[in-house]
Protein backbone atom coordinates (compact mmCIF):
# COMPACT_ATOMS: atom_id res chain seq x y z
CA UNK A 1 0.00 0.00 0.00
CA UNK A 2 2.92 2.34 0.52
CA UNK A 3 3.26 4.71 -2.45
CA UNK A 4 6.92 5.39 -1.82
CA UNK A 5 7.73 1.70 -2.02
CA UNK A 6 6.31 1.50 -5.56
CA UNK A 7 7.67 4.82 -6.73
CA UNK A 8 11.27 5.02 -5.60
CA UNK A 9 12.08 8.06 -7.83
CA UNK A 10 9.66 10.24 -5.96
CA UNK A 11 12.25 11.48 -3.47
CA UNK A 12 15.92 12.20 -4.06
CA UNK A 13 18.28 9.28 -3.82
CA UNK A 14 19.89 8.99 -0.39
CA UNK A 15 22.75 11.40 -0.09
CA UNK A 16 21.89 13.26 -3.32
CA UNK A 17 20.81 16.95 -3.19
CA UNK A 18 17.28 17.81 -4.48
CA UNK A 19 17.74 19.54 -7.86
CA UNK A 20 15.02 18.45 -10.26
CA UNK A 21 11.75 20.37 -10.13
CA UNK A 22 9.33 17.64 -9.07
CA UNK A 23 7.07 16.24 -11.77
CA UNK A 24 3.92 16.69 -9.66
CA UNK A 25 4.55 20.42 -9.37
CA UNK A 26 5.21 20.72 -13.09
CA UNK A 27 1.94 18.95 -13.94
CA UNK A 28 -0.09 20.93 -11.40
CA UNK A 29 1.38 24.28 -12.48
CA UNK A 30 0.76 23.40 -16.10
CA UNK A 31 -2.82 22.49 -15.24
CA UNK A 32 -3.38 25.77 -13.42
CA UNK A 33 -1.94 27.81 -16.30
CA UNK A 34 -4.01 25.90 -18.86
CA UNK A 35 -7.23 26.30 -16.86
CA UNK A 36 -6.61 30.03 -16.26
CA UNK A 37 -6.13 30.43 -20.01
CA UNK A 38 -9.28 28.44 -20.90
CA UNK A 39 -11.33 30.27 -18.28
CA UNK A 40 -10.01 33.62 -19.48
CA UNK A 41 -10.91 32.91 -23.09
CA UNK A 42 -14.34 31.54 -22.08
CA UNK A 43 -15.16 34.58 -19.94
CA UNK A 44 -13.86 36.94 -22.62
CA UNK A 45 -16.04 35.25 -25.27
CA UNK A 46 -19.22 35.25 -23.21
CA UNK A 47 -18.84 38.88 -22.14
CA UNK A 48 -17.66 40.11 -25.54
CA UNK A 49 -20.87 38.84 -27.16
CA UNK A 50 -22.85 41.05 -24.86
CA UNK A 51 -20.62 44.11 -25.00
CA UNK A 52 -23.02 46.17 -27.12
CA UNK A 53 -25.98 45.31 -24.92
CA UNK A 54 -24.26 46.06 -21.62
CA UNK A 55 -21.89 48.96 -22.33
CA UNK A 56 -23.27 52.22 -20.99
CA UNK A 57 -23.41 55.12 -23.45
CA UNK A 58 -22.19 58.34 -21.89
CA UNK A 59 -24.81 61.06 -21.56
CA UNK A 60 -27.88 58.84 -21.90
CA UNK A 61 -30.87 59.98 -19.84
CA UNK A 62 -33.51 57.51 -18.63
CA UNK A 63 -37.20 58.32 -18.07
CA UNK A 64 -38.99 55.46 -16.27
CA UNK A 65 -42.71 54.82 -15.76
CA UNK A 66 -44.13 56.23 -18.99
CA UNK A 67 -47.81 55.83 -19.82
CA UNK A 68 -48.53 53.51 -22.75
CA UNK A 69 -52.18 54.25 -23.43
CA UNK A 70 -53.72 55.17 -26.78
CA UNK A 71 -55.14 58.65 -27.20
CA UNK A 72 -56.65 60.54 -30.12
CA UNK A 73 -55.48 64.00 -31.08
CA UNK A 74 -52.58 66.10 -29.84
CA UNK A 75 -50.71 65.05 -26.70
CA UNK A 76 -48.61 67.40 -24.55
CA UNK A 77 -45.35 65.59 -23.86
CA UNK A 78 -42.94 66.31 -21.01
CA UNK A 79 -39.76 65.73 -22.98
CA UNK A 80 -38.56 67.38 -26.21
CA UNK A 81 -38.67 65.35 -28.31
CA UNK A 82 -40.93 62.92 -26.44
CA UNK A 83 -39.52 59.57 -25.28
CA UNK A 84 -42.85 57.94 -24.43
CA UNK A 85 -46.31 58.53 -22.99
CA UNK A 86 -49.82 58.28 -24.44
CA UNK A 87 -49.83 58.02 -28.22
CA UNK A 88 -51.97 57.53 -31.28
CA UNK A 89 -53.37 54.09 -32.10
CA UNK A 90 -51.33 54.24 -35.32
CA UNK A 91 -47.55 54.04 -35.35
CA UNK A 92 -45.22 55.91 -37.69
CA UNK A 93 -43.47 53.83 -40.34
CA UNK A 94 -39.71 53.78 -39.79
CA UNK A 95 -37.46 55.48 -42.32
CA UNK A 96 -36.10 58.86 -43.34
CA UNK A 97 -38.45 61.88 -43.39
CA UNK A 98 -37.64 65.29 -44.87
CA UNK A 99 -40.31 67.12 -42.85
CA UNK A 100 -41.20 67.03 -39.14
CA UNK A 101 -43.45 64.12 -38.16
CA UNK A 102 -46.29 64.00 -35.61
CA UNK A 103 -44.90 62.97 -32.22
CA UNK A 104 -48.11 61.10 -31.38
CA UNK A 105 -47.29 58.57 -34.12
CA UNK A 106 -43.53 58.50 -33.54
CA UNK A 107 -43.98 57.71 -29.84
CA UNK A 108 -45.98 54.64 -30.82
CA UNK A 109 -42.99 53.55 -32.96
CA UNK A 110 -40.72 53.98 -29.93
CA UNK A 111 -43.04 51.57 -28.13
CA UNK A 112 -42.42 49.10 -30.98
CA UNK A 113 -38.66 49.36 -30.43
CA UNK A 114 -37.75 52.18 -32.84
CA UNK A 115 -35.00 54.74 -32.31
CA UNK A 116 -36.06 58.26 -33.30
CA UNK A 117 -33.21 60.46 -34.48
CA UNK A 118 -34.21 64.12 -34.62
CA UNK A 119 -32.24 67.17 -35.76
CA UNK A 120 -32.69 70.94 -35.84
CA UNK A 121 -34.22 72.07 -39.13
CA UNK A 122 -31.27 74.47 -39.58
CA UNK A 123 -28.65 71.72 -39.19
CA UNK A 124 -26.02 72.17 -41.99
CA UNK A 125 -26.76 70.05 -45.07
CA UNK A 126 -23.59 67.96 -44.75
CA UNK A 127 -24.52 67.12 -41.15
CA UNK A 128 -28.00 66.02 -42.30
CA UNK A 129 -26.42 63.89 -45.02
CA UNK A 130 -24.15 62.30 -42.42
CA UNK A 131 -27.22 61.41 -40.35
CA UNK A 132 -28.96 59.92 -43.41
CA UNK A 133 -25.93 57.80 -44.24
CA UNK A 134 -25.89 56.37 -40.73
CA UNK A 135 -29.64 55.77 -40.55
CA UNK A 136 -30.06 54.18 -44.01
CA UNK A 137 -30.56 50.43 -43.87
CA UNK A 138 -31.68 50.38 -40.25
CA UNK A 139 -35.09 48.74 -39.98
CA UNK A 140 -36.14 50.42 -36.75
CA UNK A 141 -35.02 54.05 -37.02
CA UNK A 142 -37.04 57.18 -37.76
CA UNK A 143 -35.05 60.22 -38.90
CA UNK A 144 -36.80 63.57 -39.00
CA UNK A 145 -36.19 67.28 -38.41
CA UNK A 146 -37.71 68.60 -35.19
CA UNK A 147 -38.24 72.34 -34.63
CA UNK A 148 -36.84 73.99 -31.47
CA UNK A 149 -34.74 71.00 -30.51
CA UNK A 150 -32.68 71.62 -27.33
CA UNK A 151 -29.49 70.41 -29.07
CA UNK A 152 -28.54 69.99 -32.76
CA UNK A 153 -29.20 66.22 -32.77
CA UNK A 154 -31.23 64.14 -30.29
CA UNK A 155 -31.61 60.35 -30.38
CA UNK A 156 -34.56 58.86 -28.49
CA UNK A 157 -35.83 55.39 -27.67
CA UNK A 158 -38.71 54.42 -25.34
CA UNK A 159 -37.79 56.08 -22.01
CA UNK A 160 -34.24 56.88 -23.15
CA UNK A 161 -32.63 59.96 -24.70
CA UNK A 162 -29.21 61.17 -25.82
CA UNK A 163 -28.45 64.77 -26.80
CA UNK A 164 -25.63 65.29 -29.30
CA UNK A 165 -23.82 68.35 -30.60
CA UNK A 166 -23.05 66.86 -33.99
CA UNK A 167 -24.01 64.08 -36.38
CA UNK A 168 -20.56 62.48 -36.43
CA UNK A 169 -20.60 61.63 -32.72
CA UNK A 170 -19.85 57.88 -32.49
CA UNK A 171 -22.36 57.56 -29.65
CA UNK A 172 -25.16 57.87 -32.21
CA UNK A 173 -24.20 54.58 -33.85
CA UNK A 174 -23.81 52.92 -30.44
CA UNK A 175 -27.27 54.24 -29.47
CA UNK A 176 -28.89 52.88 -32.64
CA UNK A 177 -27.26 49.48 -32.21
CA UNK A 178 -28.12 49.20 -28.54
CA UNK A 179 -31.71 50.39 -28.61
CA UNK A 180 -33.25 49.31 -31.93
CA UNK A 181 -35.63 46.66 -30.54
CA UNK A 182 -33.40 46.88 -27.47
CA UNK A 183 -34.08 45.92 -23.87
CA UNK A 184 -36.24 49.02 -23.30
CA UNK A 185 -38.78 47.92 -25.96
CA UNK A 186 -42.24 47.47 -24.41
CA UNK A 187 -43.66 45.60 -27.43
CA UNK A 188 -41.00 43.24 -28.65
CA UNK A 189 -41.52 41.99 -32.20
CA UNK A 190 -44.03 44.70 -33.18
CA UNK A 191 -43.61 46.18 -36.66
CA UNK A 192 -42.31 49.55 -37.81
CA UNK A 193 -44.08 49.25 -41.17
CA UNK A 194 -47.82 48.98 -42.01
CA UNK A 195 -48.46 52.09 -39.90
CA UNK A 196 -48.81 55.67 -41.13
CA UNK A 197 -46.36 57.95 -42.93
CA UNK A 198 -44.41 57.61 -46.16
CA UNK A 199 -40.66 57.90 -45.61
CA UNK A 200 -38.55 59.13 -48.55
CA UNK A 201 -35.96 56.42 -47.88
CA UNK A 202 -35.39 53.52 -45.53
Amino acid at each position, binding site marked *: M*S*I*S*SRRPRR*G*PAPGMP*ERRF*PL*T*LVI*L*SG*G*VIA*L*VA*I*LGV*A*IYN*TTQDRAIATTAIEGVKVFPGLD*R*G*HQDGAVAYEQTPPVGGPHN*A*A*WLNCGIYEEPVASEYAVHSLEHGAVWVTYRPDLPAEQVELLRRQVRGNGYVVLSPYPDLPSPVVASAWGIQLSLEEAGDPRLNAFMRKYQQG*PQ*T*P*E*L*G*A*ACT*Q*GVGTPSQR
Partner: protein
Amino acid sequence: MTSMETTPNNAPERGGITNILVIVLVALSVALGALWWLTQPPQEGDPAVTFSRDMSYHHQQAVEMALLLRDRTDDPELRLILIDMALTQQAQIGQMSGWLEAWGLPITGPQPPMTGQMTHGGETMTMTPEMMGIQPQSEVNKLATLPVSEAEVLFLQLMIRHHRGAILMAESTLSQTQRSPVTRLAQSIIAGQESEIALMQKLLADRGAQELP
Protein backbone atom coordinates in the same frame (compact mmCIF):
# COMPACT_ATOMS: atom_id res chain seq x y z
CA MET B 1 0.32 7.38 5.82
CA THR B 2 3.45 5.63 7.05
CA SER B 3 5.23 6.66 3.86
CA MET B 4 5.06 10.32 4.98
CA GLU B 5 7.52 9.55 7.73
CA THR B 6 10.16 8.54 5.22
CA THR B 7 9.95 11.71 3.05
CA PRO B 8 12.90 14.12 3.05
CA ASN B 9 13.14 17.25 5.17
CA ASN B 10 12.11 19.73 2.49
CA ALA B 11 8.91 17.80 1.76
CA PRO B 12 6.55 19.83 4.00
CA GLU B 13 7.37 23.02 2.06
CA ARG B 14 6.88 21.36 -1.30
CA GLY B 15 3.77 19.61 0.03
CA GLY B 16 2.40 23.05 0.90
CA ILE B 17 2.88 24.30 -2.65
CA THR B 18 1.36 21.11 -4.03
CA ASN B 19 -1.67 21.52 -1.78
CA ILE B 20 -2.16 25.12 -2.84
CA LEU B 21 -1.85 24.16 -6.52
CA VAL B 22 -4.36 21.34 -6.07
CA ILE B 23 -6.82 23.71 -4.39
CA VAL B 24 -6.36 26.31 -7.16
CA LEU B 25 -6.82 23.61 -9.79
CA VAL B 26 -10.01 22.37 -8.19
CA ALA B 27 -11.36 25.94 -7.83
CA LEU B 28 -10.60 26.71 -11.48
CA SER B 29 -12.23 23.47 -12.59
CA VAL B 30 -15.32 24.32 -10.58
CA ALA B 31 -15.41 27.82 -12.11
CA LEU B 32 -15.00 26.43 -15.61
CA GLY B 33 -17.67 23.81 -14.94
CA ALA B 34 -20.04 26.48 -13.63
CA LEU B 35 -19.42 28.70 -16.66
CA TRP B 36 -20.00 25.76 -18.99
CA TRP B 37 -23.17 24.81 -17.13
CA LEU B 38 -24.50 28.38 -17.13
CA THR B 39 -24.00 28.76 -20.87
CA GLN B 40 -25.57 25.42 -21.78
CA PRO B 41 -28.75 25.53 -23.88
CA PRO B 42 -31.87 24.37 -22.03
CA GLN B 43 -32.82 20.71 -22.32
CA GLU B 44 -36.10 18.99 -23.10
CA GLY B 45 -38.52 19.68 -20.23
CA ASP B 46 -36.97 23.04 -19.28
CA PRO B 47 -39.64 25.75 -18.70
CA ALA B 48 -37.97 27.90 -21.38
CA VAL B 49 -38.45 25.12 -23.93
CA THR B 50 -42.05 24.42 -22.94
CA PHE B 51 -42.83 28.13 -23.05
CA SER B 52 -41.35 28.55 -26.54
CA ARG B 53 -43.49 25.75 -27.93
CA ASP B 54 -46.69 26.51 -26.04
CA MET B 55 -46.57 30.23 -26.75
CA SER B 56 -45.81 29.64 -30.45
CA TYR B 57 -48.89 27.46 -30.72
CA HIS B 58 -50.91 30.01 -28.76
CA HIS B 59 -49.72 32.90 -30.96
CA GLN B 60 -50.63 30.96 -34.12
CA GLN B 61 -54.30 31.06 -33.19
CA ALA B 62 -54.12 34.80 -32.54
CA VAL B 63 -52.50 35.41 -35.93
CA GLU B 64 -55.16 33.29 -37.62
CA MET B 65 -58.00 35.14 -35.89
CA ALA B 66 -56.51 38.58 -36.56
CA LEU B 67 -55.96 37.92 -40.27
CA LEU B 68 -59.39 36.33 -40.71
CA LEU B 69 -61.06 39.49 -39.49
CA ARG B 70 -58.64 41.89 -41.18
CA ASP B 71 -59.64 40.42 -44.53
CA ARG B 72 -63.22 41.47 -43.78
CA THR B 73 -63.47 44.59 -41.62
CA ASP B 74 -63.27 48.18 -42.92
CA ASP B 75 -62.93 49.76 -39.48
CA PRO B 76 -59.57 51.60 -39.66
CA GLU B 77 -58.83 51.44 -35.93
CA LEU B 78 -59.58 47.72 -35.80
CA ARG B 79 -57.58 47.04 -38.98
CA LEU B 80 -54.56 48.69 -37.39
CA ILE B 81 -54.85 46.65 -34.19
CA LEU B 82 -55.31 43.46 -36.21
CA ILE B 83 -52.20 43.97 -38.32
CA ASP B 84 -50.27 44.96 -35.19
CA MET B 85 -51.31 41.73 -33.44
CA ALA B 86 -50.61 39.56 -36.48
CA LEU B 87 -47.18 41.01 -37.24
CA THR B 88 -46.05 41.20 -33.61
CA GLN B 89 -47.12 37.70 -32.72
CA GLN B 90 -45.78 36.23 -35.96
CA ALA B 91 -42.43 37.92 -35.26
CA GLN B 92 -42.47 36.48 -31.73
CA ILE B 93 -43.22 33.01 -33.15
CA GLY B 94 -40.12 33.42 -35.31
CA GLN B 95 -38.11 34.42 -32.26
CA MET B 96 -39.24 31.39 -30.26
CA SER B 97 -38.72 28.96 -33.18
CA GLY B 98 -35.25 30.45 -33.58
CA TRP B 99 -34.42 29.69 -29.95
CA LEU B 100 -35.56 26.08 -30.32
CA GLU B 101 -33.49 25.75 -33.48
CA ALA B 102 -30.42 27.22 -31.74
CA TRP B 103 -30.98 24.96 -28.74
CA GLY B 104 -31.05 21.96 -31.07
CA LEU B 105 -34.61 21.02 -30.15
CA PRO B 106 -37.59 20.28 -32.38
CA ILE B 107 -40.40 22.82 -32.61
CA THR B 108 -42.88 20.10 -31.65
CA GLY B 109 -42.67 18.78 -28.10
CA PRO B 110 -43.15 15.26 -26.76
CA GLN B 111 -46.59 16.20 -25.38
CA PRO B 112 -49.39 18.22 -26.99
CA PRO B 113 -49.05 21.99 -26.37
CA MET B 114 -50.23 23.46 -23.08
CA THR B 115 -50.61 20.19 -21.19
CA GLY B 116 -47.64 20.63 -18.83
CA GLN B 117 -47.39 22.05 -15.33
CA MET B 118 -47.89 25.71 -14.58
CA THR B 119 -47.70 27.79 -11.43
CA HIS B 120 -50.33 30.34 -10.59
CA GLY B 121 -50.58 32.22 -7.30
CA GLY B 122 -47.99 29.90 -5.76
CA GLU B 123 -49.91 26.77 -6.76
CA THR B 124 -48.81 24.20 -9.28
CA MET B 125 -51.44 22.79 -11.61
CA THR B 126 -51.77 21.04 -14.93
CA MET B 127 -52.48 23.30 -17.88
CA THR B 128 -55.18 22.82 -20.45
CA PRO B 129 -55.34 24.71 -23.75
CA GLU B 130 -58.77 26.07 -22.70
CA MET B 131 -57.36 27.43 -19.45
CA MET B 132 -54.69 29.21 -21.50
CA GLY B 133 -57.30 30.93 -23.64
CA ILE B 134 -57.22 28.71 -26.73
CA GLN B 135 -60.61 29.15 -28.42
CA PRO B 136 -62.62 26.33 -30.02
CA GLN B 137 -61.94 26.20 -33.77
CA SER B 138 -65.71 26.36 -34.37
CA GLU B 139 -65.72 29.85 -32.80
CA VAL B 140 -62.65 30.94 -34.77
CA ASN B 141 -64.29 29.77 -38.00
CA LYS B 142 -67.29 32.02 -37.29
CA LEU B 143 -65.03 35.06 -37.79
CA ALA B 144 -65.09 34.23 -41.51
CA THR B 145 -68.84 33.59 -41.77
CA LEU B 146 -70.75 35.85 -39.35
CA PRO B 147 -71.91 39.27 -40.59
CA VAL B 148 -68.89 41.59 -40.19
CA SER B 149 -70.23 43.65 -37.28
CA GLU B 150 -70.98 40.44 -35.34
CA ALA B 151 -67.61 38.98 -36.30
CA GLU B 152 -65.92 42.11 -34.91
CA VAL B 153 -67.63 41.70 -31.55
CA LEU B 154 -66.92 37.98 -31.43
CA PHE B 155 -63.27 38.63 -32.28
CA LEU B 156 -62.90 41.12 -29.44
CA GLN B 157 -64.59 38.74 -27.00
CA LEU B 158 -62.47 35.76 -28.03
CA MET B 159 -59.21 37.70 -28.21
CA ILE B 160 -59.60 39.19 -24.72
CA ARG B 161 -59.88 35.63 -23.39
CA HIS B 162 -57.00 34.54 -25.57
CA HIS B 163 -54.78 37.36 -24.28
CA ARG B 164 -55.68 36.59 -20.65
CA GLY B 165 -54.44 33.03 -21.18
CA ALA B 166 -51.19 34.25 -22.74
CA ILE B 167 -50.56 36.54 -19.77
CA LEU B 168 -51.20 33.65 -17.35
CA MET B 169 -48.76 31.46 -19.26
CA ALA B 170 -46.10 34.19 -19.40
CA GLU B 171 -46.45 34.87 -15.66
CA SER B 172 -46.13 31.18 -14.87
CA THR B 173 -42.97 31.00 -16.98
CA LEU B 174 -41.46 34.05 -15.25
CA SER B 175 -41.81 32.22 -11.93
CA GLN B 176 -40.05 29.15 -13.35
CA THR B 177 -37.06 30.45 -15.33
CA GLN B 178 -34.44 33.21 -15.32
CA ARG B 179 -33.22 32.60 -18.87
CA SER B 180 -32.93 36.16 -20.14
CA PRO B 181 -34.27 36.09 -23.71
CA VAL B 182 -37.27 34.10 -22.50
CA THR B 183 -38.02 36.31 -19.51
CA ARG B 184 -37.66 39.41 -21.67
CA LEU B 185 -40.19 38.12 -24.20
CA ALA B 186 -42.54 36.92 -21.45
CA GLN B 187 -42.47 40.39 -19.87
CA SER B 188 -43.07 41.99 -23.24
CA ILE B 189 -46.06 39.71 -23.87
CA ILE B 190 -47.55 40.62 -20.49
CA ALA B 191 -47.08 44.36 -21.02
CA GLY B 192 -48.19 44.34 -24.65
CA GLN B 193 -51.24 42.14 -24.27
CA GLU B 194 -52.43 43.87 -21.09
CA SER B 195 -52.59 47.17 -22.97
CA GLU B 196 -54.29 45.45 -25.92
CA ILE B 197 -56.93 44.03 -23.56
CA ALA B 198 -57.70 47.57 -22.37
CA LEU B 199 -57.95 48.67 -25.98
CA MET B 200 -60.26 45.80 -26.95
CA GLN B 201 -62.46 46.44 -23.90
CA LYS B 202 -62.93 49.99 -25.16
CA LEU B 203 -63.76 48.76 -28.67
CA LEU B 204 -66.28 46.29 -27.22
CA ALA B 205 -67.90 49.09 -25.22
CA ASP B 206 -68.01 51.25 -28.38
CA ARG B 207 -70.02 48.45 -29.98
CA GLY B 208 -72.36 48.16 -26.99
CA ALA B 209 -71.17 44.63 -26.28
CA GLN B 210 -69.87 42.86 -23.20
CA GLU B 211 -66.89 40.66 -22.46
CA LEU B 212 -67.45 36.92 -22.24
CA PRO B 213 -67.07 35.49 -18.72
